[in-house]
């Protein structure tokens, strides 16, 4: 739904005070006015991390104890020139989100957020809110909701549902060709999440006219998206799904709603230099979307108020009794969207600043008109610093089928009657067999031919018929995104350009969504207001600038050869920078998977053995589940600097994401309220951050020895919990799914490398020692000791192959998760963690003695150091670690293997 745009760099060179240099740069450019749709000139590698945090929503009458939505995102992209005219770019994005978000809106009088109350002494305490989407309310005969004093109160309130963490991953690419006065690029990609997969392709062209003072951009794109949403197992029994019955598949533990959506977009843009200090860009775009356009997780609250219920409740003799129900939302199967925008950029001479003004108008055939105004002030401050404050205002009308909730003057279900008003009865065991029965005046029953029926032989029941869907609007949604509101946001971006083409950027934005801010008034009520902030940090490496530095400084290349070939990709801290002032940036990806047999020590173990022995600390003293698979992905960024030739400093932030599923052990009977078997769990976000110092100990031709001393800061979360389910809080997710150690850790290592002719070899001892007994969640991971040795052979002067042996030993987890008090089935309990009395389904992964072990692996890798061209000096490495033997503590899944891939650039 968002946009991934490609960088535009109008100036290829660093700005200097010499106007002539700028002029030359401008002349050299193939297109001075490049729109965001075409690939830029400079080769670049970018990394970005961002955090989105929403504020808590108001539930008006009850406290909101649910964590609001938060999203951690990482983004990495690379853009390179394959030839002078051919450009290639690819990007990877990953988002992990969790938290509470509205699933519907309901009349406040219905107490849609049922208070979670517990008794404490003589007092009844409200400790939170639980969504309750089916209930009854009173309405007056004119269908206005009534409060308990029988006064009209139609005010709405959101009903929230919480999502456990989920992850989305996207990969995309662009390939471009550039002529002197034109460019074309094609791109495509795929975005994958557990319940949504989207594939897209695009083509963009640019023509320059008028001595390149004018550029015309034309783009066309197509997206095909499949939804396969697992309906919330807590709410699903209370949701009316009749309109989508043929799109819902019923699986053993879940119900899946499927749909397909297609979007075609076209855009036309024109960029024009107005004078030597100003330019303008105008654009118009059209998007047509068809298919399943609903949000599968949003439901519409419908109050079914049948006039026949007037006075049926003696406590409210003048009121109807409304049946509050939730229906899957229904949107049109088609949407045509038009956007028109203009962007004006003015240079402010006395301050060397630029003012960017944007306006965008949006119109669609759902009745939404929206306006966006934005102003950015880009202020260079000298020495590479730039500060950009910005402000943005957005306002939209509501969609014509938007309503907070609906009231329908009919019963949700009622007894069926025939044409003369007689109640119809049917066979309770086979209600659709066509047989109908009617009560006679003497209390007996007859069939539709008037023959008397022996009701002791047939179990009969009144026939119920559902509501008449034609009395509801054809489309309805209470999604806040389709309501009328305004949004005001403001933020600042600070960037610092370092020498050698490296730059850092940090930004912050605060956003407030309010009905009252809608242009012209008439927005949604204050109940729907919310706020969020987004903070981001980015590292950019300009390869074109670096490439020139590397070419100028050929001693670097020389230096690379001194220590032979690079170590295998899975070995960290294997190399030191040799010269004072040198820098290196690198990225390392590691993937590991566990699947297959469950092991106890070195041997496969039966489900029965696991069930009886692996969860002795649980309430049942038995396991019910075991892990089915466990995947871990780590993204590590490293920045290394040599203040002297014998000391290197290194900073390594990490980003993690994990996925696992569990299965029921054989011999255990599935319990829907206990065993969480609905498609697996995911977590992700910032991991621990490493800070290291590397010291050179010995360095002679052919032999090199260095040591590293490091600290790992506990920046990764260790308090991730599963959402409340089946009326019970669920406690901590398994130890292995937490994102960090939670403790400050000490990481020493000692590395020896040697080389002779085409051969290189090395060995390393390393360790991780926990500096604290337990983390904030009550436990500490086991210490790690690792030893490894490798040999590699240069196949050519730039490509080498390696073989490596690794032995790793890790202790079991010390301590255990702190008890997590919570509310289960209306009672305050002192612990809701897996394996507790109220949440008794547990597996070996919930116990610290089933972590750690002794592991033997062999690794096979290749490494390449690119000798010339665009990637001169870049090092790429890939290594696969194949497990040879596992000797696990407790009961654990066997390992399938681990993949490491790395990229490094020294300059």
């Amino acid at each position, binding site marked *: *739904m*968002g*946009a*991934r*745009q490609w960088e535009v760099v109008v*100036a290829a060179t660093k*700005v200097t005070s010499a*106007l002539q240099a700028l*002029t030359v740069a*401008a*002349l050299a450019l193939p297109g*001075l006015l490049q*729109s965001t749709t075409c690939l830029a000139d400079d080769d670049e590698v*970018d990394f970005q991390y961002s955090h989105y945090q929403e504020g808590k929503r108001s539930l008006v009458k009850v406290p909101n104890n649910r964590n609001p939505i938060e999203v951690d995102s990482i*983004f990495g*992209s690379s853009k390179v020139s394959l030839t002078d005219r051919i450009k290639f770019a690819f990007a990877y994005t990953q988002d992990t989100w969790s*938290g509470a978000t509205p699933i519907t809106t309901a009349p406040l009088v219905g107490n849609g957020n049922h208070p979670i109350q517990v008794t404490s002494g003589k007092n009844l305490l409200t400790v939170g809110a639980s969504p309750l989407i089916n209930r009854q309310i009173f309405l007056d005969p004119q269908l206005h909701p009534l409060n308990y004093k029988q006064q009209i109160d139609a005010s709405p309130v959101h009903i929230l549902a919480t*999502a456990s963490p989920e992850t989305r991953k*996207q990969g995309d690419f662009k390939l471009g060709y550039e002529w002197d006065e034109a460019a074309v690029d094609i791109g495509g990609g795929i*975005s994958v999440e557990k*319940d*949504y997969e*989207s594939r*897209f392709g*695009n083509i963009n062209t640019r023509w320059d006219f008028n*001595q390149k*003072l*004018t550029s015309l951009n034309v783009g066309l794109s197509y997206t095909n998206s499949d939804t396969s949403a697992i309906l919330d197992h807590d709410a699903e029994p209370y949701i009316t799904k009749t309109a989508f019955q043929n799109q819902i598949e019923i699986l053993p533990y879940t119900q899946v709603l499927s749909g397909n959506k297609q*979007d075609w977009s076209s*855009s036309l843009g024109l*960029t*024009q230099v*107005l*004078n*030597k200090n100003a*330019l303008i860009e105008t654009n118009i*775009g059209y*998007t047509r979307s068809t298919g399943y356009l609903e949000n*599968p997780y949003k439901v519409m609250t419908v109050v079914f108020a049948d006039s026949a219920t007037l006075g049926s409740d003696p406590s409210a003799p003048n009121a109807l009794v409304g049946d509050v129900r939730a229906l899957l939302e229904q949107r049109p199967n088609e949407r045509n*969207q*038009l956007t028109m925008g*203009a*962007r*004006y950029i003015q*240079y402010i001479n006395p301050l060397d600043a*630029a003012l*960017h003004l944007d306006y965008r108008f*949006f119109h669609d055939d*759902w009745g*939404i008109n*929206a306006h966006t105004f934005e102003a*950015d002030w880009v202020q*260079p401050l000298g020495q590479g610093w*730039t500060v*950009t404050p910005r402000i943005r205002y*957005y306002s*939209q009308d509501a969609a014509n089928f938007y309503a907070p909730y609906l009231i329908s003057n009919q019963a949700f279900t009622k007894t069926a009657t025939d044409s003369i008003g007689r109640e119809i009865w049917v066979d309770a065991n086979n209600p659709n067999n066509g047989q109908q029965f009617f009560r006679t005046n003497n209390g007996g029953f007859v069939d539709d031919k008037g023959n008397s029926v022996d009701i002791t032989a047939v179990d009969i029941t009144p026939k119920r018929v559902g509501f008449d869907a034609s009395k509801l609007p054809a489309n309805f949604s209470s999604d806040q995104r*389709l309501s009328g509101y305004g949004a005001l946001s403001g933020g600042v971006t600070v960037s610092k350009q370092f020498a050698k083409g490296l730059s850092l*950027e940090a930004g912050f934005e605060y956003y407030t*969504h309010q009905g009252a801010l809608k242009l012209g008034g008439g927005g949604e009520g204050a109940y729907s207001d919310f706020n969020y902030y987004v903070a981001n940090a980015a590292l950019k490496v300009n390869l074109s600038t670096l490439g020139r530095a590397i070419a100028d400084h050929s001693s670097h290349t020389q230096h690379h050869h001194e220590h032979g070939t690079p170590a295998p990709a899975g070995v960290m801290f294997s190399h030191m920078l040799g010269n004072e002032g040198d820098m290196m940036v690198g990225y390392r990806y590691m993937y590991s998977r566990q699947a297959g047999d469950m092991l106890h020590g070195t041997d496969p173990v039966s489900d029965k053995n696991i069930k009886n022995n692996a969860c002795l600390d649980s309430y049942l003293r038995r396991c019910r589940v075991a892990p089915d698979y466990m995947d871990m992905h780590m993204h590590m960024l490293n920045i290394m600097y040599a203040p002297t030739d014998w000391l290197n400093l290194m900073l390594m932030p990490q980003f993690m994401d994990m996925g696992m599923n569990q299965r029921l052990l054989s011999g255990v009977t599935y319990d829907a309220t206990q065993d969480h078997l609905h498609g697996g769990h995911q977590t992700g976000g910032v991991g621990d951050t490493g800070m290291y110092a590397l010291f050179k100990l010995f360095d002679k031709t052919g032999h090199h020895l260095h040591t590293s001393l490091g600290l790992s800061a506990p920046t990764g979360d260790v308090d991730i919990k599963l959402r409340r389910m089946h009326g019970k809080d669920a406690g901590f997710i398994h130890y292995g799914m937490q994102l960090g150690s939670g403790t400050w850790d000490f990481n020493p290592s000692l590395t020896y490398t040697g080389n002779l002719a085409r051969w290189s070899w090395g060995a390393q001892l390393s360790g991780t020692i926990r500096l604290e007994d337990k983390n904030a969640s009550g436990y500490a991971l086991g210490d790690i000791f690792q030893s490894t040795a490798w040999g590699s052979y240069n196949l050519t002067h730039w490509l080498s192959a390696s073989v490596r042996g690794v032995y790793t030993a890790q202790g079991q987890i010390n301590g255990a998760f702190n008890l997590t008090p919570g509310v289960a089935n209306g009672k305050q309990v002192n612990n809701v963690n897996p394996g507790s009395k109220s949440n008794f389904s547990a597996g070996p992964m919930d116990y610290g003695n089933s972590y750690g072990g002794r592991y033997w692996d062999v690794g096979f890798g290749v490494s390449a150091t690119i000798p010339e061209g665009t990637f001169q000096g870049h090092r790429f490495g890939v290594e696969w670690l194949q497990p040879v033997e596992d000797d696990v503590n407790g009961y654990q899944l066997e390992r399938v293997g681990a993949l490491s891939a790395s990229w490094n650039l020294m300059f």
Partner: protein
Amino acid sequence: MNKLVCLLPLVLVITGCTAVAPWQRGTLAKPQMALEPNPVQSALRTHTYGSREAAAGGGSAVGGGCGCY
């Protein structure tokens, strides 16, 4: 032809196009004058707005997922 093309934005901004010779384009080439001075961050912001506002789309298809939260 060039003048005709120049007329299009002129209609929108009621400002005339001045002939800017290549050696007068130094200012336009400054990073702060780029259409997107912080493109990676702009993409993130567009993605975030897209998951919270109805007026997404109209541009090129670039993925972005369901944004169903």
